């Protein structure tokens, strides 16, 4: 099996492996911090999930190897799933995480307009005027709807509070 095939195989089972590591951490935490009665049912769920994940990883590995054999046999003409580009996924996910970080640090009224301007300008390819206008209107709606009408105190962020 070539290095490329190995890396594809690893990528296939990576989510399951990461989840398995999470569950192992959960089990370890239960044993270290909880008494017998408190950890009984959580451990039962964790062990069952663990077992199922091991089966999933093994099944994923055998499916991957079989797919590679089929691919070689058909001269490489195997239909591959189309996934969005990794860079696109990462940028959208990071933008959302950045929004939350911005909200935590500087509050909604700073983070929200910045996020809207950046996403509409660079992901949506909208003009600067449109992005600014949308950000302003959205912030205004949030202020009117939540602060004035519903009476919620919108979070100002830890820097500004």
């Amino acid at each position, binding site marked *: 099996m070539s290095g490329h095939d190995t890396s594809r195989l690893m990528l296939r089972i990576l989510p399951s492996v990461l989840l398995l590591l999470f569950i192992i951490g959960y089990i370890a935490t*239960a044993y270290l911090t*909880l008494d017998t009665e408190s950890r009984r049912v959580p451990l039962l769920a964790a062990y069952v999930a663990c077992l199922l994940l091991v089966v999933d990883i093994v099944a994923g590995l055998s499916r991957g190897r079989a*797919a590679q054999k089929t691919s070689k046999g058909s001269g490489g003409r195997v239909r591959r799933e189309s996934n969005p580009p990794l860079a696109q996924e990462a940028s959208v996910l990071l933008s959302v995480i950045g929004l*939350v970080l911005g909200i935590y640090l500087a509050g909604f009224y700073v983070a929200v307009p910045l996020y809207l301007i950046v996403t509409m300008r660079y992901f*949506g390819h909208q003009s600067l005027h449109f992005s600014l206008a949308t950000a302003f209107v959205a912030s205004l709606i949030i202020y009117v709807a939540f602060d004035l009408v519903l009476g919620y105190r919108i979070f100002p962020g830890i820097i500004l509070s």
Partner: protein
Amino acid sequence: MLDVLWQSAADVISLQTLVFLMLGVIVGLVFGVIPGLGGTTALAILLPLTFGMEVVDALAMSGGIMGAVGMGGSIPAILLNAPGTAPNAATCLDGYPLAQQGRAAEALGATATASPLGGVIGILTLLLVLPVAKDFILFFGPPEFFLLAVFGIVTVTLAESTNLLRGLISAGVGLMLAFVGYDTVSGGIRFTFGSDYLWDGIPLVPSLMGLFGMAEMIRLSIKGGSIAADVKSVRIGGMMTGIRATFRHWKVVIRSSVIGTLVGAVPGAGGTVATFIAYGATKKANPRPESFSKGRIEGVIAPEAANNAKDGGALLPTLAFGIPGSAEMAVFLGYLVLHGMQPGPSMLLDHEQEIYSLVVALTLSAVLASIIGLACVRWLAMITVVNVQILAPLVIVVSLVGAYAVHSSPGDVVVATMLGVLGYLMTRFNYPRLPLVMALILGETAERGFKQAMMIGQDNWGIFLHSPASIVMVLLIILSLGWSIVPYVVKIAAGRKTGEVT
């Protein structure tokens, strides 16, 4: 019961409540029109905004959403061959051919008539069964509630999962997350890592918003583009033909509504199953089944009647047992919890008037959705050409503000975002989300029932077989697992023999 029903109706038709009902109907129509969003996302996003509302207003709004989303979803299904929600996929089969023949208005008229009729029949069924359900519930003790929770998780997992193994893994992870926080039986604090925020466990409302609402917005942002490239023009004339056709085919309406109600009551079956079964039954009952999928008006009436009838059926296990039968019902549970109404046996006893208010709201919303939907069909269809890079960030922002507003806690914003990212990754890597949500909702019920049952039975597992109800549920769980797992294993083994890659 009639007194309570009249009082509830009076509550709903007050001006303030009607405004919220209309708002829910409009939101439901809009979210139904946009393929990929649907009632679950709409409910999830609006959930925190109901925090300061009266209970009746919140239930009216949520009822408005649930009653309208099916009608909204039928519009792109007929006009664009793109179902607005999954259950509307069956409407495409004959709805789009009708549109291609220039009979789009007739199809929309039939949809607008069949939807409220189906909804009313589903609600009437619910009203008939609810009083009986109250007495039935009193037979349930801790062992029965544990088994019911397990049954709910198992059936939804098996029904919703194209990948059975990953569905069960999702359910297992959901259970693990459900045990975070204060253990109500033993009194211990679990998996909080010193955080006071997690004492009450992972909060349900932000979790639902994240897993469904935000995850969908993230997916749309990554997908990019717009939902549809073009909008076909709609002729308003011809709708009366569709309306008259629905009444002419009253047997189709009744048959499909009954199917929708029954299927809706089964946890995990969902609207898609209901609409396709209703479509199939109608086709089979017709003397010319080969003419279906080519523009038969009955092919539109059947799925739309079933789609709205299923709401009445789905409410029964949700309200009576706290077992949501679908993703939409799971989010709806959040509305109940947010307003201090704990789903389960006490729900029907302590909140009878509120439940009947919801019933009235659902009935009204189906009618209003039809009227408003028909009036605004051209504009609603235009929403599908909006660039998602404008739509999705706005919805994400509103969701996060809403998440914060529930308890004025930044922690809820973090939870909604983390679960949103998790929800997207789950769909990306083919881990179904609904089993995780079901387990998150039912995990505490299952654990509490299990521990109490073991205390009652003095650690004797026979306690779970001590009553007819518990024996029936054990058998149902075993049958459900066997029904799904055995063909799955057989399929895997057959694949290995022929060398196929599955």
